[in-house]
């Protein structure tokens, strides 16, 4: 698997303190969790014991514990405690791979390249920003940019500009969104959106309704693309 650069994973607001949530990038599973200090961690979503997903586990202070047999890992991914062997000095080799994380544009990003390699540059994003909404759709991530314009907002087609291969700027009437596209797995994508400035909650409702329609339109278009490719 080839990972390059920074990958958007979810809105900062969507992983609460002491919570864990799972995600996928190109089909590979990751866990995101936030410790009691508010730091976000992105790890491989796999407990070294028996392979249970860590995203099903629970956060206790600055440790995350596996749901299955309660093995506890510290912020460095190192297993510190095994309930079945409370007196054991846990071997240093029991460790979960973890990845660099940044929070920018109200979105959490991680970088999955080799641990010791230099961090790639990060795209400049509007700041401040205002986290808005994520949508998940059965649509290939590579097709999203071209399809967004087909879902009008207030009767007007959105203006879409690609800032990078995963970041789009979407200009809608009365609001500009930064949309970070996540290639979840084949045929399935997520798009994490934030406004480029503060927007009062109540004023976000029409955009939310638009985003829901966009998801429906993306899925319809993706089905049509599939059918026509099949026919061709």
């Amino acid at each position, binding site marked *: 698997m080839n990972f390059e650069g920074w990958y958007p994973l*979810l809105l900062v607001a*969507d992983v609460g303190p002491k919570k864990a949530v799972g995600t996928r990038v190109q089909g590979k599973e990751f866990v995101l969790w936030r410790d009691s200090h508010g730091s976000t961690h992105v790890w491989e979503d796999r407990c070294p014991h028996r392979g249970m997903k860590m995203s099903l586990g629970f956060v206790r202070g600055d440790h995350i514990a596996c749901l299955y047999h309660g093995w506890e890992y510290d912020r460095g991914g190192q297993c510190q405690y095994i309930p079945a062997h409370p007196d054991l000095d846990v071997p240093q080799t029991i460790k979960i791979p973890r990845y660099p994380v940044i929070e920018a544009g109200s979105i959490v990003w991680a970088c999955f390249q080799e641990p010791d390699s230099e961090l790639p540059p990060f795209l400049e994003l509007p700041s401040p920003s205002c986290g808005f909404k994520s949508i*998940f759709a059965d649509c290939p991530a590579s097709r999203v940019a071209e399809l967004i314009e087909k879902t009008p907002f207030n009767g007007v087609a959105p203006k879409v500009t690609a800032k990078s291969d995963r970041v789009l700027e979407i200009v809608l009437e009365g609001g500009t969104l930064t949309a970070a596209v996540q290639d979840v797995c084949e045929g399935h994508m997520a798009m994490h959106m934030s406004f480029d400035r503060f927007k009062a*909650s109540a004023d976000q*409702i029409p955009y939310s*309704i638009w985003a829901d329609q966009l998801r429906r339109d993306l899925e319809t278009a993706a089905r049509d693309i599939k059918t026509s490719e099949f026919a061709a």
Partner: protein
Amino acid sequence: MTTPTLYNYDLDENCYKVRLLLSHLGIEAETIAVDVMPGKEHLSPPILAMSPKGALPILKHGNLVLTEVEAILVWLARTYDPDKKLLPEDPDTLGRVMMWLSFSARTLDVAVAARATALMDMPGDIEALRRKSYDAFRIMDDHLTIQQFRGEAFLAGGTLTVADIALFPSFALSRDFNIDHDEFPALRRWANTLRLIDGFITMPGIPDYH
């Protein structure tokens, strides 16, 4: 006031809804365990006499026998919630509560079927049920996102109602039929809020964290 009797099966999410509401209201009901698996006791003549489909929960209070979980939740709220918060009188909120109760019974029933198919070998097309459950969760997630923009944390408004109690377990248990919570941020937040209500109780598959 005499207390009601609940015919209960611990692994049934519809029974859990009633237990959760009873606990939230602080009511000790007499609970009669019905051995559904493996005993098939829900198909025994005494149960069928009260609930011809063999469906649980059943609530008995004096001469009143209620089946259908939404009706039981409504009756409990009306009977034991003096503040009328769980089943508000204001017509608009009541309308919204009833709308989500109907959604629970008519749309989210696929999630109950998906779980029964996955866990209890009930015959069914698990893939189709899972897809329909996913679509129902999306509707709830989109709605709760908008609720959040309105500054309201619950399905029918700014406070907890029986609608939240009716819809919560299917989402909380969705991993039983292989739907992760990852793609439903608003539902995750809502479920976390519900875990903090007075008298919250757990059931197998619904811990008090996460």
